[in-house]
């Protein structure tokens, strides 16, 4: 889930986790309405919401142990396993209050893994981390997803989503502006740069094509947003009107541009 601060990402996560009561609408998790039996769904979900929060007076291991006791049927070996998984075993006996932000985030992820959930929700997991910590978390997320589970990542960091996610939902003020695979979104919003002699005439021709989403003139180039596979159709349409392109460049717009286009050029609230 990608969106600017205040887009509603954390509220959606809060509603999925039964922390926030929806005023209307309904939430289906694993094909079941959450209202019917939230606990059966929650048992299959692990989540770290915003920054991780644990008891400061307990060690990392004790924090996981108290969680394991309340969940039930989780062995001490499993606690060791998840601590090892997030590279925290050597600091497991240290108090949580002495952990760095990166260690806190990793403990948060370890807590989600305790019961081997089918779905992991990570809300801004790289918040407050240094570049090395960010990389560590970003490397860990795809690994988690490759273990036969889904990971929902909430972020306002476009490059993070582009690097880590396979599918993206772009939100703004609680409205879903796009919901597609990252590849699809990038392909659909691919830009073409065309060099022609008569840019004004070419602009007029191409603006009339239904599959062209936007056109503009930039630095003497005609820039249009259109599906990548339609490049030959662009060329054809121009040639039919006696305009021949001297250059036609496919430009990958990147999630940032897609995001700015979808949110009207301003990602802020």
């Amino acid at each position, binding site marked *: 889930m990608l969106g600017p601060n205040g887009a509603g990402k954390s509220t959606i996560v809060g509603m999925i986790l039964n*922390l926030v009561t929806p005023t209307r609408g309904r939430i289906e998790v694993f094909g079941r309405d959450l209202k019917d039996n939230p606990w059966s769904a929650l048992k299959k979900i692990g989540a770290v919401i915003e920054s991780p929060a644990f008891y400061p007076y307990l060690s990392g291991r004790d924090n996981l142990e108290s969680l394991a*006791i*309340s969940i039930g049927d989780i062995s001490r070996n499993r606690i060791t396993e998840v601590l090892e998984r997030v590279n925290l075993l050597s600091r497991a006996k240290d108090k949580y209050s002495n952990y760095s932000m990166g260690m806190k985030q990793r403990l948060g992820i370890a807590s989600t893994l305790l019961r081997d959930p089918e779905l992991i929700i990570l809300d801004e997991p790289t918040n407050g981390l240094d570049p090395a910590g960010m990389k560590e978390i970003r490397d860990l997320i795809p690994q988690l997803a490759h273990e036969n589970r889904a990971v929902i990542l909430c972020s306002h960091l476009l490059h993070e989503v582009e690097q880590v996610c396979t599918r993206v939902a772009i939100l703004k003020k609680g409205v879903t502006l796009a919901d597609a695979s990252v590849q699809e979104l990038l392909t659909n919003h691919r830009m073409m740069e065309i060099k022609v002699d008569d840019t004004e005439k070419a602009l007029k021709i191409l603006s009339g094509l239904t599959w062209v989403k936007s056109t503009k003139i930039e630095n003497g180039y005609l820039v249009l947003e259109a599906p990548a596979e339609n490049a030959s159709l662009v060329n054809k349409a121009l040639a039919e009107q006696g305009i021949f392109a001297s250059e036609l460049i496919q430009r990958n717009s990147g999630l940032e541009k897609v995001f700015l286009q979808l949110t009207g050029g301003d990602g802020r609230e």
Partner: protein
Amino acid sequence: MSKLLHAELFKLRKRGMTWIVLFVTMGIIVIINLLLYAISRIALSNPGSGGMSRMVNILDISASIPFSLSMLSSFGAVMAVILIASTVGNEYNWRTLRIALISGKGRVQLLAAKIISVAVVVIILVAVSLAVGFIMSIITNAWAGNSLDFSFFTASYGWSQFLQFWRTLFIILPFMMMGLLFAVIGRSAMPGIAVGVGILFLEPILTPLMRAAGGWVAEIPSYLFSANVNAINALSNLPRVFRFGGGSQQAPSTIEAYLVLGAYVVVFTAVAFYLFRKRDVTG
């Protein structure tokens, strides 16, 4: 529910504050016993002071249990308020409530587990402090050269102290639930502790003033805490010299005291559960 209770007890056991509260309460009992011993020595060494006849029974071992219980009904309540307000309120302060709630248990069960776990700690606290008070009484009696006579410990004495033990816990309960309610309302430990402890100390000061005002204002204390606490505390076998606050002619009957304090417990608990269950957990 049992898993949640186990987890809450685990956290309380690992928490420094639990042990501090326990040791502070025991320390208060020890210090008060030592002070009583010192006062009794001074009273006995000044026969002309007139205090001797009253002070001579201070060291009586038979009075140590009801005396400790009487003290614990106030100190214990302070400690119970601190424990419950910090246990529930700090979940908001530390934002750990979300983790507890998404572990797949209901909010009602979670809050119930927290209340029960703190109640268990309070029972242990009162029992241990009581034992400390009794041991201190034996020690001070030995120091004073009194014979250690345990013949008072009959079945009826034991039964009456057993009842007073549970009465003391009942007295603590409304304060504890008030601490809980205000911690939930304020989503923090501080409002619970401030309101709970504040009322515990302010009410005994305001009660005589309201009684002195006369008219309908004089009736108000009968529906507050301290008058009803005193009415229940008066059931102990404590010599009159040790009784705190009681003896007012307008004191409520025992039944009224149970009903009023019970009503507070029910209302505080119900509102706390309603708010805890109803409100969104955000931030």
